[in-house]
């Protein structure tokens, strides 16, 4: 069968459902990113703290997140926790795995960004008579934010791409929705081609918006 006939009508009819799936993808990525950032700040503080307990908790979290496949963590949340009687919905399983990964990766980004600022700047600001809050507000954090902005954008794009693993636990995000739709119409190729284009557009859109924000906020002071 070398002459495959493309039938696009089924796909166009199902387009609203695909869009809804894309919305869920964005939804889970944004939420997991926001929660991930909060936890990442705590983990970064933990990795820099003098307390052994906090350091080890943060360290174990970061290393597990960075050194195991995303799919493994999703399975762990979906099947693994089920063994304890905690049955997560597919959405929540993917969400929690993404939060875990985002937090782990971002913690290292935050720590690196923080440590890349020379401590002499802190002393200099102090000697100018700034108090601690002012030092962070006007000197340390703005510079740090500039350095972690691009890695954060990348992590967000990664979350969008990783959420496609939801297909394997039956989540209703873009790829899961595509899988469901193609299983009733058997237009696998068409559906997944459209899904691929949608993922591409989504990631490009995110990068574009992020560069617009960067231009406005940093006024060209970012590489």
């Amino acid at each position, binding site marked *: *069968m*070398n002459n*495959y006939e493309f039938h696009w009508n089924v796909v166009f009819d199902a387009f609203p459902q695909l869009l809804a799936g894309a919305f869920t993808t964005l939804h889970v990525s944004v939420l997991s990113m926001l929660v991930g950032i909060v936890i990442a700040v705590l983990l970064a503080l933990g990795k820099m703290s003098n307390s052994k307990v906090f350091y080890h908790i943060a360290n174990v979290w970061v*290393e*597990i997140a*960075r*050194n*195991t*496949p*995303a*799919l*493994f963590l999703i*399975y*762990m949340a979906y*099947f*693994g926790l*089920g*063994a*304890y009687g905690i049955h997560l919905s597919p959405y929540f399983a993917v969400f929690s795995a993404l939060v875990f990964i985002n937090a782990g990766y971002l913690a290292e980004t935050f720590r690196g960004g923080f440590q890349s600022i020379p401590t002499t700047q802190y002393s200099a600001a102090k000697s100018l008579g700034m108090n601690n809050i002012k030092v962070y507000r006007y000197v340390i954090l703005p510079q740090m934010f500039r350095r972690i902005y691009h890695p954060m954008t990348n992590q967000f*794009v990664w979350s969008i*791409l*990783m959420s*496609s*693993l939801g*297909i*394997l636990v039956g989540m209703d995000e873009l*790829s899961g929705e595509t899988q469901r739709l193609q299983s009733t119409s058997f237009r*696998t*190729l068409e559906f*997944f*081609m459209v*899904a*691929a284009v949608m*993922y*591409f557009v989504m*990631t*490009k859109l995110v990068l574009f918006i992020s560069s617009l924000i960067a231009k406005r906020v940093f006024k060209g002071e970012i590489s």
Partner: protein
Amino acid sequence: MNLFTPLSWNDTGFILTGILNTVYISVVAIIVGSLLGLLVGFIRAESNKSVNMFLGAFLDILRSVPLIIQLILFTTFIGAMGYPLDPFVAGSIILSLYTMAFMSEVFRSGFDSVPENMVKAARSLGMTYMQTVRYVRVPIGMRAVFPSWLGVALSVIKDSALVSVIGYMELLRTAEQLISRTQQPLMILIGVGLFYFMISYPLSRYGKYVERKMEI
């Protein structure tokens, strides 16, 4: 009647096949992807804007479409065209291309990191163009990007878990089948996670160590 049989020592062989298959496809993808990435990275470092834009767009597609979608799309495509491939072959092709997309960027920055004056000096010593590539640009440029290369290679090992969707019996898929037979997800999954961790963690530590050493 009990439908599920508990985990036994007889399953070690089954798990071992999964481990070997994971290692196998990862090694193939890393080698092929690195070689292709080296070539593409070199072309990108050397060529003009229009070629670069064209290549860049292609690599961009590979990088911004989820691997799982690429795998499904590719297997369906070759199936529809009438040339179905073995899951291992299809998986290696896509995983290698995916690796190439990331490696080419790594190697390109490696080529760019070699100072131009060094290449000029080599030329003035009578080296041919190919000799400067072979003896100056590749060794010096590649050494500079070794930590990033290692990072990409490690992510390929982790991404190889996704090849299970097209039916390749790698570690996570064997684990999944064992889980559905034994109904002991926790123990099996923790074992699988430990395996990935034991490969990835020491190597990532080594990468960080090399990176720190290079900074000094």
